[in-house]
């Protein structure tokens, strides 16, 4: 082989996916189906991810072998279910590098996690004249809970601005911080733009003013390695169903010191130590924030999902997805009439775009006929749409089980849309 040939080979070798995508895809039974007679191309992973067989097995195992209530039974089934549930908590703790299991609160999802913090921590610490900072690219679930809190507490909600690429303006942010800043709530990865925000730096700046920092990790934990202690955030929230686990379960991480000082969010069973009609003593962490019977099977299956992700390796996942996003960005942006919305230098998974003169909803319907599932609309981020002066975008969001062939199918689908509307 000549020199040029061997260079080419090396180059190719480097581009071989770090894991076998075809094999990975076989772990996800849903991906093998056809939609409108075409192979399913699932590119709506920012809305929800598909589940590997191990997650489905974990749900079925709970219902066929261990179904019982947790934290209270003396019988074997309850013991096993409780063990699985708590093993899952430990796995989450290790996964996000928290210091202790008691910092891991099971909730319904990211939305509930943020509401918990705004209602419990927020009500206690935010008063008239105080300020809560959120960013211009937040999902509605990281806007509305803070609006409610600010209205109630007569505090001010301030918005950290961004540039046309969809990157937060750190200088402006730094100037917004001050002695009245109580809370900074920011997304780790934007669901509508794909921007990865410098949350570690943002937390560091906020802490200079003793402000508390919540990071919305709903679009982050499945794509990049998260170390809550390294980020030094005070709270970190994510959803199970976006990391290949079931719906109805999510995680709120909080620093022990803060969680211990916070009043309960909901009252009920499991969150108490003792109850009389005169007085109730609350349970210790994390149970203080876990009133009522939780979504047991989802909590257990979330552990299975994280186990699956860890077995693949988040570093390998990140590398593969990064390369696939670059490939997709190139393939889509070279189509005439396409504009990519969200061109931050640091991005993960999300490719939002608009076609000139064609509404994203029409794009979505035509792509669906080609078997391609994408999201169209405002992605629960209407202020982002307003910023870019568009009513909506079409959004393809990638997972590690997506392939270059699927990106090619997406590009062909977009060309078909243009053909229909020509």
């Amino acid at each position, binding site marked *: 082989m000549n020199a040029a040939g061997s260079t080419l080979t090396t180059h190719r070798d480097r581009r071989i996916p770090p894991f076998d995508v075809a094999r990975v895809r076989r772990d996800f039974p849903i991906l093998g189906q056809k939609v*409108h007679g075409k192979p399913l191309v699932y590119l709506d992973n920012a809305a929800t991810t598909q589940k590997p067989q191990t997650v489905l097995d974990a749900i079925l195992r709970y219902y066929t072998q261990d179904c019982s209530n947790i934290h209270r039974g003396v019988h074997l089934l309850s013991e096993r279910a409780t063990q699985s549930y708590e093993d899952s908590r430990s796995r989450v703790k290790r996964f996000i590098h928290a210091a202790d299991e008691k910092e891991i609160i099971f909730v319904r999802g990211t939305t509930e996690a943020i509401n918990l913090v705004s209602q419990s921590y927020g009500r206690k610490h935010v008063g008239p004249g105080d300020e809560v900072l959120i960013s211009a690219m937040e999902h509605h679930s990281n806007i509305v809970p803070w609006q409610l809190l600010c209205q109630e507490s007569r505090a001010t909600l301030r918005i950290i601005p961004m540039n046309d690429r969809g990157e937060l303006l750190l200088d402006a942010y730094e100037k917004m911080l001050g002695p009245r800043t109580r809370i900074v709530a920011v997304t780790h990865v934007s669901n509508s733009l794909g921007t990865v925000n410098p949350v570690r730096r943002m937390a560091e700046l906020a802490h200079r003013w003793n402000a508390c920092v919540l990071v919305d990790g709903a679009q982050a934990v499945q794509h990049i390695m998260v170390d809550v202690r390294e980020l030094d955030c005070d709270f970190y929230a994510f959803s199970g169903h976006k990391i290949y686990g079931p719906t109805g379960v999510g995680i709120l991480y909080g620093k022990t010191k803060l969680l211990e000082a916070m009043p309960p969010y909901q009252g009920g069973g499991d969150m108490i130590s003792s109850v009389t009609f005169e007085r109730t003593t609350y349970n210790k962490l994390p149970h203080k924030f876990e009133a009522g019977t939780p979504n047991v099977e989802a909590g257990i299956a979330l552990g299975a999902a994280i186990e699956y992700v860890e077995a693949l390796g988040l570093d390998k996942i990140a590398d593969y997805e990064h390369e696939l996003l670059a490939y997709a960005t190139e393939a889509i942006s070279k189509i005439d009439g396409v504009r990519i919305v969200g061109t931050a230098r640091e991005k993960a998974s999300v490719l939002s775009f608009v076609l000139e*003169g*064609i*509404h*994203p*909803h*029409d794009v979505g*319907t*035509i792509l669906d*006929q080609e078997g391609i599932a994408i999201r*169209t*609309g*405002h992605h629960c981020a*209407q202020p982002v*749409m307003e910023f870019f002066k568009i*009513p*909506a975008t079409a959004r393809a969001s990638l997972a590690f089980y997506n392939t270059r062939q699927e990106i090619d199918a997406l590009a062909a689908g977009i060309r*078909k849309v243009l053909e*229909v*509307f020509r």
Partner: protein
Amino acid sequence: MSDLRELYQQVILDHHKRPRNHRKLEDANRTAEGFNPLCGDHVYLYLRLEDGVVRDIGFEGTGCAISTASASMMTESLKGKTEAEVRALFDKFHDLVTGKSAADADPASMGKLAVFAGVREYPVRVKCATLAWHTLRAALEQQKEAVATE
């Protein structure tokens, strides 16, 4: 492609590209706003009603091809109609796109609006086709709140 052409008929694409009556009516005496929170479609409807008859009608807003074409063709079909005729047409149109009148409807009686029959194969798009019509009804009833098709 043939399935898609049922939805995206030439008439619809034409009205999408060149919507008719796409203007604000300065002398409107009935107006309403409608939006579809799910996809961001937004329509403002302007109506001049005299002696119970639609004398003029216009709309503004942003939306997908189906909602824009539906608004455009709706305005074309309503001029000169009485309020009662407008309400009757609303019902017929609604049945047409939801497929309630699939077997026995007389598409000819719908005139050009019959092209929207293809929408019934796309349940999530029904609200796109009906947004302008719901907004129309709100305008007739002088509803203050914006209409949302959810």
